[in-house]
Protein backbone atom coordinates (compact mmCIF):
# COMPACT_ATOMS: atom_id res chain seq x y z
CA UNK A 1 0.00 0.00 0.00
CA UNK A 2 1.59 3.20 -1.08
CA UNK A 3 0.39 5.83 1.25
CA UNK A 4 1.73 9.30 0.84
CA UNK A 5 2.90 9.61 4.40
CA UNK A 6 5.93 11.57 3.37
CA UNK A 7 3.64 14.37 2.35
CA UNK A 8 3.40 15.68 5.88
CA UNK A 9 7.07 16.39 5.93
CA UNK A 10 6.66 19.18 3.47
CA UNK A 11 4.87 21.35 5.97
CA UNK A 12 4.62 20.00 9.44
CA UNK A 13 8.01 18.49 9.82
CA UNK A 14 9.82 21.49 8.48
CA UNK A 15 9.49 22.75 12.00
CA UNK A 16 12.16 21.00 13.99
CA UNK A 17 9.79 20.31 16.85
CA UNK A 18 7.19 18.43 14.93
CA UNK A 19 4.65 16.61 17.05
CA UNK A 20 5.00 12.95 17.79
CA UNK A 21 3.32 10.58 15.46
CA UNK A 22 0.83 8.32 16.98
CA UNK A 23 2.26 5.26 18.71
CA UNK A 24 5.58 5.28 17.06
CA UNK A 25 7.18 3.65 20.06
CA UNK A 26 9.87 6.05 21.20
CA UNK A 27 8.16 9.36 21.31
CA UNK A 28 10.63 12.16 21.65
CA UNK A 29 8.66 14.37 23.87
CA UNK A 30 11.54 16.69 24.39
CA UNK A 31 10.91 17.90 20.89
CA UNK A 32 7.63 19.23 22.12
CA UNK A 33 9.19 21.99 24.15
CA UNK A 34 7.92 25.41 23.17
CA UNK A 35 10.24 27.24 20.83
CA UNK A 36 9.60 30.67 22.16
CA UNK A 37 9.55 31.50 25.78
CA UNK A 38 6.78 33.44 27.35
CA UNK A 39 6.60 36.76 29.01
CA UNK A 40 7.80 37.47 31.57
CA UNK A 41 10.53 35.39 30.09
CA UNK A 42 11.63 32.36 32.02
CA UNK A 43 14.85 31.38 30.36
CA UNK A 44 14.60 27.98 28.79
CA UNK A 45 17.18 26.52 31.17
CA UNK A 46 15.31 27.78 34.17
CA UNK A 47 11.79 26.99 33.07
CA UNK A 48 9.83 24.08 34.49
CA UNK A 49 8.23 22.22 31.61
CA UNK A 50 5.29 21.33 33.80
CA UNK A 51 4.14 24.74 35.03
CA UNK A 52 6.04 26.68 32.32
CA UNK A 53 7.25 29.14 34.95
CA UNK A 54 10.56 29.81 36.63
CA UNK A 55 11.77 26.75 38.49
CA UNK A 56 10.76 26.78 42.14
CA UNK A 57 12.86 24.55 44.41
CA UNK A 58 14.38 22.96 41.32
CA UNK A 59 15.10 19.25 41.20
CA UNK A 60 17.06 17.47 38.51
CA UNK A 61 16.36 13.95 37.31
CA UNK A 62 18.93 11.34 36.45
CA UNK A 63 17.98 11.88 32.82
CA UNK A 64 19.03 15.49 33.25
CA UNK A 65 15.73 17.34 33.25
CA UNK A 66 14.78 20.03 35.70
CA UNK A 67 11.38 20.61 37.23
CA UNK A 68 9.90 22.40 40.20
CA UNK A 69 9.94 20.05 43.16
CA UNK A 70 6.19 20.19 43.71
CA UNK A 71 5.38 19.93 39.99
CA UNK A 72 7.36 16.72 39.60
CA UNK A 73 6.02 15.30 42.84
CA UNK A 74 2.48 15.96 41.73
CA UNK A 75 3.16 14.44 38.31
CA UNK A 76 4.59 11.33 39.90
CA UNK A 77 1.73 10.86 42.34
CA UNK A 78 -1.08 11.68 39.95
CA UNK A 79 0.09 10.05 36.81
CA UNK A 80 3.09 7.81 36.73
CA UNK A 81 6.72 7.65 37.62
CA UNK A 82 8.05 8.51 34.18
CA UNK A 83 9.90 11.68 33.27
CA UNK A 84 7.46 14.00 31.48
CA UNK A 85 10.13 14.81 28.92
CA UNK A 86 11.65 11.50 27.90
CA UNK A 87 9.57 8.77 29.55
CA UNK A 88 12.48 7.49 31.61
CA UNK A 89 11.35 5.64 34.73
CA UNK A 90 12.15 7.67 37.80
CA UNK A 91 12.38 6.43 41.34
CA UNK A 92 12.81 8.71 44.34
CA UNK A 93 16.54 8.05 44.21
CA UNK A 94 16.74 9.40 40.67
CA UNK A 95 15.63 12.88 41.67
CA UNK A 96 18.03 15.30 43.29
CA UNK A 97 17.65 18.87 44.50
CA UNK A 98 19.38 21.20 42.05
CA UNK A 99 20.75 23.85 44.34
CA UNK A 100 23.08 25.20 41.69
CA UNK A 101 20.16 26.18 39.50
CA UNK A 102 18.30 27.46 42.52
CA UNK A 103 21.16 29.82 43.30
CA UNK A 104 21.47 30.88 39.66
CA UNK A 105 17.79 31.77 39.56
CA UNK A 106 18.09 33.61 42.87
CA UNK A 107 20.95 35.63 41.43
CA UNK A 108 18.96 36.45 38.32
CA UNK A 109 15.97 37.35 40.41
CA UNK A 110 18.14 39.80 42.25
CA UNK A 111 19.71 41.23 39.12
CA UNK A 112 16.62 41.41 36.94
CA UNK A 113 13.60 41.58 39.22
CA UNK A 114 11.49 42.89 36.34
CA UNK A 115 11.67 39.61 34.53
CA UNK A 116 9.90 37.84 37.33
CA UNK A 117 6.24 38.08 37.94
CA UNK A 118 4.52 37.44 41.23
CA UNK A 119 3.28 33.84 41.34
CA UNK A 120 -0.28 34.94 40.87
CA UNK A 121 -0.74 38.23 39.12
CA UNK A 122 -3.29 40.46 40.78
CA UNK A 123 -4.77 43.42 38.98
CA UNK A 124 -5.91 46.35 41.05
CA UNK A 125 -8.58 48.87 40.39
CA UNK A 126 -7.00 51.99 38.98
CA UNK A 127 -8.56 53.93 41.84
CA UNK A 128 -6.61 51.90 44.37
CA UNK A 129 -4.57 55.01 45.21
CA UNK A 130 -7.69 56.65 46.55
CA UNK A 131 -8.72 53.73 48.75
CA UNK A 132 -10.64 51.52 46.33
CA UNK A 133 -9.54 48.05 47.34
CA UNK A 134 -11.00 46.06 44.46
CA UNK A 135 -8.59 43.40 43.20
CA UNK A 136 -8.86 40.52 40.78
CA UNK A 137 -6.65 38.15 38.89
CA UNK A 138 -8.72 38.79 35.79
CA UNK A 139 -8.10 42.13 34.05
CA UNK A 140 -11.53 41.95 32.45
CA UNK A 141 -13.20 41.88 35.86
CA UNK A 142 -11.30 44.99 36.82
CA UNK A 143 -12.47 46.68 33.65
CA UNK A 144 -16.07 45.78 34.48
CA UNK A 145 -15.65 47.01 38.02
CA UNK A 146 -14.33 50.35 36.74
CA UNK A 147 -17.30 50.66 34.41
CA UNK A 148 -19.92 49.79 37.01
CA UNK A 149 -18.55 51.57 40.05
CA UNK A 150 -17.82 54.98 38.59
CA UNK A 151 -20.17 56.71 41.05
CA UNK A 152 -18.35 55.26 44.05
CA UNK A 153 -15.07 56.14 42.45
CA UNK A 154 -16.10 59.76 42.01
CA UNK A 155 -17.10 59.89 45.67
CA UNK A 156 -13.75 58.46 46.65
CA UNK A 157 -12.00 60.92 44.40
CA UNK A 158 -13.85 63.84 45.97
CA UNK A 159 -13.20 62.81 49.56
CA UNK A 160 -9.59 62.12 48.75
CA UNK A 161 -9.28 65.52 47.12
CA UNK A 162 -10.82 67.24 50.15
CA UNK A 163 -8.45 65.42 52.44
CA UNK A 164 -5.45 66.28 50.37
CA UNK A 165 -6.26 70.01 50.63
CA UNK A 166 -5.26 69.91 54.28
CA UNK A 167 -2.31 67.70 53.76
CA UNK A 168 -0.65 69.05 50.70
CA UNK A 169 2.50 69.70 52.70
CA UNK A 170 2.81 65.98 53.46
CA UNK A 171 4.93 63.88 51.21
CA UNK A 172 2.70 61.99 48.85
CA UNK A 173 2.32 58.37 49.77
CA UNK A 174 3.98 56.03 47.42
CA UNK A 175 1.90 53.52 45.57
CA UNK A 176 2.03 50.58 47.92
CA UNK A 177 2.50 47.99 45.24
CA UNK A 178 5.10 48.06 42.56
CA UNK A 179 7.35 50.91 43.60
CA UNK A 180 7.31 49.74 47.20
CA UNK A 181 8.33 46.29 46.13
CA UNK A 182 11.10 47.67 44.02
CA UNK A 183 12.27 50.00 46.75
CA UNK A 184 12.31 47.27 49.40
CA UNK A 185 14.03 44.95 47.00
CA UNK A 186 16.60 47.62 46.30
CA UNK A 187 16.97 48.34 50.01
CA UNK A 188 17.35 44.67 50.80
CA UNK A 189 19.97 44.40 48.15
CA UNK A 190 21.96 47.40 49.33
CA UNK A 191 21.61 46.34 52.96
CA UNK A 192 22.91 42.92 52.10
CA UNK A 193 25.82 44.44 50.20
CA UNK A 194 26.55 46.78 53.10
CA UNK A 195 26.51 43.89 55.57
CA UNK A 196 28.82 41.92 53.34
CA UNK A 197 31.24 44.84 53.01
CA UNK A 198 31.23 45.44 56.76
CA UNK A 199 31.73 41.80 57.49
CA UNK A 200 34.75 41.73 55.21
CA UNK A 201 36.10 44.86 56.88
CA UNK A 202 35.70 43.26 60.31
CA UNK A 203 37.62 40.22 59.21
CA UNK A 204 40.46 42.40 57.90
CA UNK A 205 40.56 44.48 61.08
CA UNK A 206 40.51 41.42 63.32
CA UNK A 207 43.39 39.98 61.38
CA UNK A 208 45.36 43.23 61.68
CA UNK A 209 44.59 43.41 65.37
CA UNK A 210 45.86 39.91 65.95
CA UNK A 211 49.04 40.59 64.03
CA UNK A 212 49.68 43.73 66.05
CA UNK A 213 49.07 41.92 69.31
CA UNK A 214 51.67 39.37 68.32
CA UNK A 215 54.07 42.11 67.34
CA UNK A 216 53.61 43.88 70.67
CA UNK A 217 54.13 40.64 72.61
CA UNK A 218 57.28 40.04 70.65
CA UNK A 219 58.50 43.59 71.26
CA UNK A 220 57.81 43.27 74.98
CA UNK A 221 59.76 40.06 75.01
CA UNK A 222 62.56 41.76 73.12
CA UNK A 223 62.51 44.70 75.47
CA UNK A 224 63.16 42.47 78.48
CA UNK A 225 65.87 40.73 76.54
CA UNK A 226 67.63 43.92 75.57
CA UNK A 227 68.53 45.41 78.97
CA UNK A 228 71.72 43.45 79.67
CA UNK A 229 70.09 41.41 82.41
CA UNK A 230 69.58 37.72 81.81
CA UNK A 231 67.68 35.79 84.44
CA UNK A 232 68.16 32.12 83.75
CA UNK A 233 65.77 29.77 85.43
CA UNK A 234 67.49 26.41 85.28
CA UNK A 235 64.46 24.20 85.81
CA UNK A 236 64.31 20.49 86.64
CA UNK A 237 67.70 20.85 88.23
CA UNK A 238 68.04 17.31 89.61
CA UNK A 239 66.88 15.69 86.41
CA UNK A 240 69.30 17.74 84.34
CA UNK A 241 72.07 16.94 86.77
CA UNK A 242 71.40 13.23 86.34
CA UNK A 243 71.42 13.64 82.57
CA UNK A 244 74.76 15.41 82.74
CA UNK A 245 76.19 12.69 84.96
CA UNK A 246 75.12 10.00 82.57
CA UNK A 247 76.47 11.95 79.62
CA UNK A 248 79.22 14.38 80.69
CA UNK A 249 79.17 16.00 77.23
CA UNK A 250 75.68 17.43 77.83
CA UNK A 251 75.58 21.22 77.87
CA UNK A 252 72.70 23.53 78.65
CA UNK A 253 72.42 26.98 77.11
CA UNK A 254 70.26 29.79 78.38
CA UNK A 255 68.03 31.90 76.14
CA UNK A 256 69.73 34.88 74.51
CA UNK A 257 69.97 38.44 75.77
CA UNK A 258 71.36 41.79 74.61
CA UNK A 259 73.40 44.18 76.74
CA UNK A 260 71.16 46.99 75.41
CA UNK A 261 68.75 47.37 72.49
CA UNK A 262 71.61 47.75 70.01
CA UNK A 263 74.25 45.99 72.06
CA UNK A 264 76.10 42.74 72.39
CA UNK A 265 74.21 39.49 72.29
CA UNK A 266 75.06 36.78 74.76
CA UNK A 267 73.93 33.66 76.52
CA UNK A 268 75.11 31.41 79.31
CA UNK A 269 76.10 27.76 79.42
CA UNK A 270 76.01 25.17 82.18
CA UNK A 271 77.67 21.80 82.09
CA UNK A 272 79.57 19.48 84.40
CA UNK A 273 83.20 20.26 85.04
CA UNK A 274 85.64 17.98 83.29
CA UNK A 275 87.78 17.65 86.38
CA UNK A 276 85.25 17.56 89.16
CA UNK A 277 82.35 15.36 88.18
CA UNK A 278 80.05 16.84 90.82
CA UNK A 279 80.89 20.43 90.07
CA UNK A 280 79.01 22.82 87.74
CA UNK A 281 80.84 24.75 85.11
CA UNK A 282 79.38 28.17 84.19
CA UNK A 283 80.36 30.27 81.16
CA UNK A 284 79.15 33.34 79.31
CA UNK A 285 79.24 33.18 75.51
CA UNK A 286 78.97 36.13 73.20
CA UNK A 287 76.71 35.52 70.23
CA UNK A 288 76.70 36.72 66.69
CA UNK A 289 74.06 39.41 66.02
CA UNK A 290 73.08 42.07 63.50
CA UNK A 291 74.68 44.68 65.76
CA UNK A 292 78.16 43.22 65.59
CA UNK A 293 79.30 45.40 62.64
CA UNK A 294 78.93 48.68 64.55
CA UNK A 295 80.06 47.50 67.96
CA UNK A 296 83.58 47.88 69.20
CA UNK A 297 85.56 44.70 69.65
CA UNK A 298 86.73 43.10 71.83
CA UNK A 299 83.88 43.53 74.29
CA UNK A 300 84.88 45.59 77.27
CA UNK A 301 82.70 45.51 80.30
CA UNK A 302 81.71 44.12 83.66
CA UNK A 303 79.90 40.86 84.17
CA UNK A 304 78.02 40.20 87.35
CA UNK A 305 76.82 36.68 88.00
CA UNK A 306 74.40 36.13 90.84
CA UNK A 307 73.20 32.75 91.99
CA UNK A 308 69.89 33.38 93.73
CA UNK A 309 69.34 31.81 97.12
CA UNK A 310 66.03 31.12 98.79
CA UNK A 311 67.24 33.61 101.37
CA UNK A 312 68.42 36.66 99.40
CA UNK A 313 71.09 37.45 101.94
CA UNK A 314 72.94 34.30 100.92
CA UNK A 315 72.94 35.12 97.20
CA UNK A 316 76.31 34.28 95.71
CA UNK A 317 77.64 37.08 93.53
CA UNK A 318 80.73 37.07 91.31
CA UNK A 319 81.89 40.10 89.38
CA UNK A 320 84.25 39.65 86.47
CA UNK A 321 85.90 42.17 84.19
CA UNK A 322 86.38 41.42 80.51
CA UNK A 323 89.91 40.90 79.30
CA UNK A 324 90.65 42.05 75.78
CA UNK A 325 93.24 39.34 75.17
CA UNK A 326 90.76 36.53 75.79
CA UNK A 327 89.18 35.17 72.57
CA UNK A 328 85.81 34.90 74.26
CA UNK A 329 85.43 38.71 74.06
CA UNK A 330 86.28 38.96 70.39
CA UNK A 331 83.71 39.22 67.67
CA UNK A 332 81.97 35.81 67.55
CA UNK A 333 83.01 33.86 64.44
CA UNK A 334 80.00 31.57 64.82
CA UNK A 335 76.43 31.95 66.01
CA UNK A 336 77.63 31.20 69.48
CA UNK A 337 81.23 32.04 70.15
CA UNK A 338 83.14 28.77 70.70
CA UNK A 339 85.04 30.40 73.50
CA UNK A 340 83.31 31.11 76.74
CA UNK A 341 84.26 33.11 79.77
CA UNK A 342 83.46 32.13 83.31
CA UNK A 343 84.21 29.41 85.83
CA UNK A 344 85.27 25.92 84.92
CA UNK A 345 84.41 25.00 88.51
CA UNK A 346 81.58 27.30 89.48
CA UNK A 347 79.84 25.45 92.28
CA UNK A 348 79.54 21.96 93.71
CA UNK A 349 76.20 20.32 93.24
CA UNK A 350 75.80 19.21 96.83
CA UNK A 351 76.74 22.72 98.03
CA UNK A 352 74.15 24.24 95.74
CA UNK A 353 71.50 21.94 97.10
CA UNK A 354 72.57 22.12 100.68
CA UNK A 355 72.88 25.88 100.82
CA UNK A 356 69.42 26.43 99.44
CA UNK A 357 69.99 27.63 95.91
CA UNK A 358 67.39 25.21 94.53
CA UNK A 359 63.91 26.53 95.15
CA UNK A 360 60.83 24.42 95.91
CA UNK A 361 60.19 23.97 92.20
CA UNK A 362 63.55 22.28 91.64
CA UNK A 363 64.79 25.38 89.85
CA UNK A 364 68.21 27.04 90.04
CA UNK A 365 68.13 30.74 89.19
CA UNK A 366 71.20 32.57 87.95
CA UNK A 367 71.15 36.25 87.08
CA UNK A 368 73.72 37.62 84.67
CA UNK A 369 74.23 41.37 84.29
CA UNK A 370 76.47 42.62 81.50
CA UNK A 371 77.51 46.25 81.58
CA UNK A 372 79.56 47.93 78.91
CA UNK A 373 82.28 50.07 80.36
Amino acid at each position, binding site marked *: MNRTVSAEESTISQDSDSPP*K*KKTGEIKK*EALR*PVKSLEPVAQDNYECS*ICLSWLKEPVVTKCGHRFCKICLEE*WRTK*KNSKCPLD*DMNLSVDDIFPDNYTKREIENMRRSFPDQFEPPNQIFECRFSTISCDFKSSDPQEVENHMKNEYKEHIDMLLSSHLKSQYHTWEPSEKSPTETANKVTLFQQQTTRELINAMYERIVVLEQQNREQELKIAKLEQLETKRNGILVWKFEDFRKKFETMQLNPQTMYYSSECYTDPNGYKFCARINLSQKEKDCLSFHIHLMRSDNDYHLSWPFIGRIKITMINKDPTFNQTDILMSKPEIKAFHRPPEDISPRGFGFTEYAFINEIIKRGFIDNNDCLTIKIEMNIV
Partner: protein
Amino acid sequence: MANMAVSRIKREFKEVLRSEEIAQCSIKLELVNDCFTELRGEIAGPPDTPYEFGTFLLEIHVPETYPFNPPKVKFLTKIWHPNISSVTGAICLDILKDNWAAAMTLRTVLLSLQALLASPEPDDPQDAVVASQYKENFEMFCRTAKHWTNSYAKGPHKFPDFDTKIQRLKDMGVSEFDARAALSRHNWDLNRATEQLFS
Protein backbone atom coordinates in the same frame (compact mmCIF):
# COMPACT_ATOMS: atom_id res chain seq x y z
CA MET B 1 -10.20 25.75 38.61
CA ALA B 2 -6.83 24.89 39.96
CA ASN B 3 -4.37 27.73 39.96
CA MET B 4 -1.67 25.94 38.03
CA ALA B 5 -4.06 24.91 35.27
CA VAL B 6 -5.18 28.53 34.77
CA SER B 7 -1.71 29.99 34.77
CA ARG B 8 -0.50 27.29 32.40
CA ILE B 9 -3.32 27.82 29.95
CA LYS B 10 -2.74 31.57 30.05
CA ARG B 11 0.90 31.04 29.18
CA GLU B 12 0.14 28.43 26.54
CA PHE B 13 -2.43 30.67 25.01
CA LYS B 14 0.17 33.35 24.51
CA GLU B 15 2.57 30.74 23.21
CA VAL B 16 0.14 29.55 20.56
CA LEU B 17 -0.69 33.12 19.56
CA ARG B 18 2.98 33.77 18.89
CA SER B 19 3.83 30.46 17.30
CA GLU B 20 4.87 30.10 13.69
CA GLU B 21 1.93 27.83 13.01
CA ILE B 22 -0.41 30.75 13.70
CA ALA B 23 1.52 32.83 11.23
CA GLN B 24 1.12 30.08 8.66
CA CYS B 25 -2.60 29.73 9.52
CA SER B 26 -1.91 26.12 10.33
CA ILE B 27 -3.35 26.07 13.85
CA LYS B 28 -5.57 28.39 15.85
CA LEU B 29 -6.71 28.52 19.45
CA GLU B 30 -9.39 30.66 21.05
CA LEU B 31 -11.15 30.94 24.37
CA VAL B 32 -14.77 29.93 24.68
CA ASN B 33 -15.35 30.97 28.28
CA ASP B 34 -13.59 33.39 30.59
CA CYS B 35 -12.21 30.88 33.02
CA PHE B 36 -9.85 29.16 30.58
CA THR B 37 -11.51 25.74 30.87
CA GLU B 38 -13.19 25.61 27.48
CA LEU B 39 -11.24 26.37 24.36
CA ARG B 40 -11.78 26.07 20.67
CA GLY B 41 -8.99 24.77 18.48
CA GLU B 42 -8.67 24.83 14.76
CA ILE B 43 -6.26 22.92 12.53
CA ALA B 44 -5.68 23.04 8.80
CA GLY B 45 -5.77 19.76 6.90
CA PRO B 46 -2.19 18.75 6.06
CA PRO B 47 -1.12 19.08 2.40
CA ASP B 48 -1.17 16.00 0.17
CA THR B 49 -3.80 14.33 2.30
CA PRO B 50 -7.54 14.02 1.69
CA TYR B 51 -7.94 16.71 4.34
CA GLU B 52 -5.92 19.32 2.47
CA PHE B 53 -7.51 22.80 2.34
CA GLY B 54 -10.01 21.73 5.01
CA THR B 55 -10.41 23.51 8.31
CA PHE B 56 -11.23 21.36 11.33
CA LEU B 57 -12.68 22.68 14.55
CA LEU B 58 -11.85 21.07 17.86
CA GLU B 59 -13.50 21.24 21.26
CA ILE B 60 -10.95 21.40 24.05
CA HIS B 61 -11.85 20.98 27.68
CA VAL B 62 -9.10 21.62 30.22
CA PRO B 63 -9.51 19.59 33.43
CA GLU B 64 -8.72 21.05 36.84
CA THR B 65 -5.83 18.67 37.15
CA TYR B 66 -4.16 19.97 34.00
CA PRO B 67 -1.27 19.62 33.14
CA PHE B 68 -1.10 16.44 35.17
CA ASN B 69 -3.97 15.03 33.16
CA PRO B 70 -4.46 15.58 29.43
CA PRO B 71 -7.01 18.00 28.01
CA LYS B 72 -10.19 16.40 26.65
CA VAL B 73 -10.29 17.01 22.91
CA LYS B 74 -12.77 16.03 20.22
CA PHE B 75 -13.49 17.07 16.66
CA LEU B 76 -16.48 19.36 16.20
CA THR B 77 -16.08 19.19 12.44
CA LYS B 78 -17.28 15.91 10.98
CA ILE B 79 -14.36 13.99 9.57
CA TRP B 80 -13.73 10.65 7.85
CA HIS B 81 -10.65 9.22 9.56
CA PRO B 82 -9.77 5.80 11.03
CA ASN B 83 -8.83 7.22 14.42
CA ILE B 84 -11.68 9.68 14.76
CA SER B 85 -15.30 8.75 15.27
CA SER B 86 -17.31 9.88 12.25
CA VAL B 87 -20.35 10.22 14.52
CA THR B 88 -19.07 11.79 17.74
CA GLY B 89 -15.70 13.24 16.77
CA ALA B 90 -14.00 11.30 19.57
CA ILE B 91 -10.27 10.90 19.01
CA CYS B 92 -8.08 7.87 19.57
CA LEU B 93 -4.63 9.29 20.22
CA ASP B 94 -2.22 7.93 22.80
CA ILE B 95 -0.95 11.26 24.03
CA LEU B 96 -4.51 12.26 24.92
CA LYS B 97 -4.73 9.16 27.08
CA ASP B 98 -2.01 7.11 28.70
CA ASN B 99 0.95 8.68 26.98
CA TRP B 100 0.16 12.20 28.09
CA ALA B 101 3.08 14.01 29.65
CA ALA B 102 2.97 17.15 31.71
CA ALA B 103 5.51 18.77 29.43
CA MET B 104 3.09 18.71 26.49
CA THR B 105 1.05 21.77 25.66
CA LEU B 106 -2.10 22.67 23.75
CA ARG B 107 0.11 23.67 20.85
CA THR B 108 1.77 20.26 20.71
CA VAL B 109 -1.64 18.60 21.01
CA LEU B 110 -2.91 20.54 18.00
CA LEU B 111 0.25 19.72 16.05
CA SER B 112 -0.08 16.06 17.02
CA LEU B 113 -3.63 16.00 15.75
CA GLN B 114 -2.46 17.53 12.50
CA ALA B 115 0.14 14.79 12.28
CA LEU B 116 -2.57 12.23 13.00
CA LEU B 117 -4.52 13.49 9.99
CA ALA B 118 -1.41 13.03 7.87
CA SER B 119 -0.67 9.53 9.09
CA PRO B 120 -3.62 7.55 10.38
CA GLU B 121 -3.16 4.40 12.45
CA PRO B 122 -5.78 1.99 11.11
CA ASP B 123 -4.52 -0.79 13.40
CA ASP B 124 -5.67 1.12 16.46
CA PRO B 125 -8.95 2.50 15.17
CA GLN B 126 -11.58 4.66 16.76
CA ASP B 127 -13.97 4.05 13.88
CA ALA B 128 -13.59 0.42 12.78
CA VAL B 129 -15.55 0.89 9.54
CA VAL B 130 -13.35 3.75 8.40
CA ALA B 131 -10.26 1.79 9.38
CA SER B 132 -11.20 -1.27 7.37
CA GLN B 133 -12.04 0.88 4.38
CA TYR B 134 -8.65 2.55 4.75
CA LYS B 135 -6.93 -0.83 4.75
CA GLU B 136 -9.01 -2.60 2.10
CA ASN B 137 -9.99 0.14 -0.31
CA PHE B 138 -7.61 3.02 0.12
CA GLU B 139 -8.78 4.88 -2.96
CA MET B 140 -12.38 4.75 -1.81
CA PHE B 141 -11.23 5.97 1.58
CA CYS B 142 -9.45 8.92 0.01
CA ARG B 143 -12.43 9.91 -2.09
CA THR B 144 -14.76 9.60 0.90
CA ALA B 145 -12.48 11.59 3.14
CA LYS B 146 -12.16 14.30 0.50
CA HIS B 147 -15.93 14.37 0.13
CA TRP B 148 -16.37 14.79 3.90
CA THR B 149 -13.73 17.49 3.92
CA ASN B 150 -15.65 19.28 1.17
CA SER B 151 -18.98 18.87 2.93
CA TYR B 152 -17.96 19.86 6.47
CA ALA B 153 -14.55 21.50 6.38
CA LYS B 154 -14.74 23.75 3.32
CA GLY B 155 -12.57 21.44 1.21
CA PRO B 156 -12.51 22.06 -2.56
CA HIS B 157 -13.11 18.58 -3.96
CA LYS B 158 -16.63 17.89 -5.11
CA PHE B 159 -17.89 14.43 -6.03
CA PRO B 160 -21.15 14.78 -8.04
CA ASP B 161 -21.83 11.03 -8.01
CA PHE B 162 -21.70 11.03 -4.21
CA ASP B 163 -23.96 14.06 -4.06
CA THR B 164 -26.48 12.40 -6.37
CA LYS B 165 -26.61 9.32 -4.16
CA ILE B 166 -27.05 11.41 -1.03
CA GLN B 167 -29.84 13.34 -2.74
CA ARG B 168 -31.57 10.03 -3.58
CA LEU B 169 -31.58 9.05 0.08
CA LYS B 170 -32.63 12.54 1.19
CA ASP B 171 -35.59 12.21 -1.15
CA MET B 172 -36.56 9.16 0.84
CA GLY B 173 -36.70 11.30 3.98
CA VAL B 174 -33.23 10.51 5.36
CA SER B 175 -31.19 13.39 6.82
CA GLU B 176 -28.15 14.47 4.83
CA PHE B 177 -25.68 13.35 7.50
CA ASP B 178 -27.32 9.95 7.97
CA ALA B 179 -27.34 9.49 4.21
CA ARG B 180 -23.68 10.45 3.88
CA ALA B 181 -22.65 8.27 6.80
CA ALA B 182 -24.55 5.23 5.57
CA LEU B 183 -23.21 5.57 2.03
CA SER B 184 -19.65 6.11 3.26
CA ARG B 185 -19.88 2.99 5.42
CA HIS B 186 -20.90 0.88 2.44
CA ASN B 187 -18.39 2.19 -0.09
CA TRP B 188 -21.12 4.32 -1.66
CA ASP B 189 -23.26 1.27 -2.54
CA LEU B 190 -26.71 2.83 -2.60
CA ASN B 191 -28.57 -0.44 -2.16
CA ARG B 192 -26.67 -1.55 0.90
CA ALA B 193 -26.88 1.92 2.43
CA THR B 194 -30.65 1.95 1.87
CA GLU B 195 -30.89 -1.51 3.35
CA GLN B 196 -29.05 -0.38 6.46
CA LEU B 197 -31.11 2.76 6.85
CA PHE B 198 -34.46 1.09 6.47
CA SER B 199 -33.94 -2.29 8.09
